């Protein structure tokens, strides 16, 4: 077994998101220290300098698209908000919700909550956290849970998560848990969300079950 952290863990360490085990390992390992010390920036090249102008232009266009997308998303998310999931506490408007976008081939459409998915379909989630500031996406498997994504989101409005997931060819449904919270979740809190599906002011979770239909390799 490899005694060193992965290069991903080392690079996260270098970018400032290290866990304590990686940090301790780097302190005492010459090989991993050597990797971190190689991460020195070269001189700022001309091709990179030219990107500044391009990004300004890109941003002005992206604002137009963002505005259009937000208008469209507001309609879509409002349409699929299940009434049973409305947050009961007074003073909070609505409850968190998730819209699932499914890409099959070149076509992208909103998942209706029932249509079977096919191997190769790509899923992307748009969340409306209704006041929560973090979202965690977890895949539920027979013997364990796997965190697929965790990150901050805008508490108000909708956010398209910056990841998509491909449906594999294994048999059995895909079970996904989406947990909204106001601070990072510990593994115990994630497990508790899996078991209890809490709908509280601190943690709000919902489970998606995507039936899989064999069809494509």
């Amino acid at each position, binding site marked *: 077994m490899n005694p060193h952290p*992965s290069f991903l863990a080392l690079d996260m360490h270098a970018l400032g998101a290290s866990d304590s085990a990686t940090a301790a390992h780097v302190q005492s390992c010459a090989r991993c220290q050597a990797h971190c010390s190689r991460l020195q920036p070269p001189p700022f090249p001309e091709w990179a300098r030219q990107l500044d102008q391009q990004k300004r232009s890109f941003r002005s266009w992206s604002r137009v698209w963002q505005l259009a997308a937000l208008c469209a998303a507001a309609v879509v998310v409002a349409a699929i908000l299940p009434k049973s999931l409305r947050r009961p506490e007074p003073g909070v408007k609505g409850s968190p919700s998730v819209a699932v976008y499914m890409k099959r081939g070149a076509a992208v459409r909103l998942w209706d909550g029932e249509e079977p998915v096919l191997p190769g379909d790509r899923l992307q989630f748009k969340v409306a956290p209704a006041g929560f500031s973090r979202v965690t996406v977890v*895949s539920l498997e027979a013997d364990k849970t796997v965190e*697929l994504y965790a990150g901050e989101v805008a508490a108000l409005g909708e956010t398209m998560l910056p990841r998509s997931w491909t449906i594999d060819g294994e048999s059995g449904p895909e079970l996904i848990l989406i947990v909204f919270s106001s601070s990072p979740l510990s593994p115990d809190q994630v497990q508790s969300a899996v078991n209890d599906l809490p709908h509280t002011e601190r943690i709000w979770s919902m489970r998606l079950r995507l039936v899989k239909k064999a069809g494509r390799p």
Partner: protein
Amino acid sequence: LSELERAYRRCFPVIREKCRRMLGDTGAADDVAQETFVKLWKSGVVESDPRTLTAWLYRTSTRLAIDHLRDRARRSGRTEAVDDLVSQKPGLDDALDMRRVLQSLAAVLPRQELEIALLHRLDQLTQDEIARVAEVSPRTIRRCLRRLDERVKSFRKETMR
């Protein structure tokens, strides 16, 4: 420093090292690193938290490197790649040896299998890390790695003949 230069100083070394692990210390690695950084800057992901940012960098640079590897393998032909592999003495460095094998198999490995192979064998990611980066289920990863072991084994037998 401008926002762009800060992003470059912070992210480009990580991208460059990642590309060198996949492609060697070559002009191709520099090209893929440059392409990855351009995409990063245009995507806005550079402002994300380090965990999201690193996963994005790994995913994008791996997929761009795969485009390059497959293109190169198609142009050179598999036979030539195998001859090239046989002419070099593997074993001195496991990572280097595995890189040669994956480069030689790039034309015949399915994209997803090649992506998982690069992340697992060269970047030494755990299966949970690969799931996060490549956005596939751990079951798929296990299946791909099993198939990869079989392919590499049969490839090594073929090159020994």
